[in-house]
């Protein structure tokens, strides 16, 4: 089961990134255009969200009717319902980074296949940022 589990992760990521490439999410030009609401707005990425959420929201409930996933013992879906400062601050910082570089994690990683220094730099420093966040002591 573990092999199927791990290979599924590969397949999911592959399909996911094909979707990213087809949709324009891997193009900083499209991303900047989408965020450039007060300039030359390109609303294309709205349709990406619509397509993704449209499909997943419909199928989500169907999938959850099953007792368990195929290759894992149970579902492991986030259950938090609170809205805390970390959520908002984190999202704001992430959004700022997205607006500066034009990449979010998935597209950034997919783009390193181009071997271009820019997505490579982005991903390298994204990993650094993640490690810093993980090792930073929390304020209780």
């Amino acid at each position, binding site marked *: 089961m573990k092999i199927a589990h791990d290979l599924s*992760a590969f*397949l999911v990521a592959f399909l996911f*990134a094909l979707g990213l490439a087809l*949709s*324009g999410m891997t193009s900083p*030009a499209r991303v900047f255009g989408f965020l450039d609401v007060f300039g030359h707005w390109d609303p294309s990425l709205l349709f990406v969200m619509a397509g993704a959420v449209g499909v997943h929201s419909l199928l989500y409930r169907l999938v959850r009717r099953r007792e368990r*996933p195929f290759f894992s013992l149970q579902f492991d*879906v986030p259950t938090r319902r609170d809205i805390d400062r970390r959520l908002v601050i984190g999202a704001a910082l992430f959004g700022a980074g*997205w607006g500066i570089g034009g990449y979010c994690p998935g597209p950034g990683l997919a783009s390193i*296949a181009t071997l271009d220094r820019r997505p490579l730099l982005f991903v390298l420093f994204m990993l650094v940022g993640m490690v810093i966040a993980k090792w930073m002591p929390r304020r209780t």
Partner: protein
Amino acid sequence: MNYLSALIGGGLIGLAVTLMLMANGRVAGVSGIVAGLATPSRGDIRWRLLFVVGLVSAGALAIIVKPSAFVGMSMAPDWALPVAGLLVGFGTVIGNGCTSGHGVCGISRFSTRSLIATVTFIGAGIATVAVIRLITPGGIS
């Protein structure tokens, strides 16, 4: 044409995250999956690495079949990419998610938490681009 490929690409993303749920019972939140490699536990590494390999592999295929997918790499100056990376890496861990985790998976579950996160990061992105426009002589190219 752009809107159609955006919609279909989005649909493919939706299918992929659904498959993740069906197969492995997990949310396909890229930031969470990758960040998990920073503090890995036994048995937890291989699937995460394979996920990353999957992303990059599809990227490689896209270079061949749709190179226009990557247009715009030169728009941000080189020094901006490390800053962007740090903010995205740090922010997604603190905020527990990114566009796939909160924006697609969370919103599809009608999670208020994810909705707030999504509105916040999109808003921050819009504000950031607006500020960059204001302070850059030529604006964004």
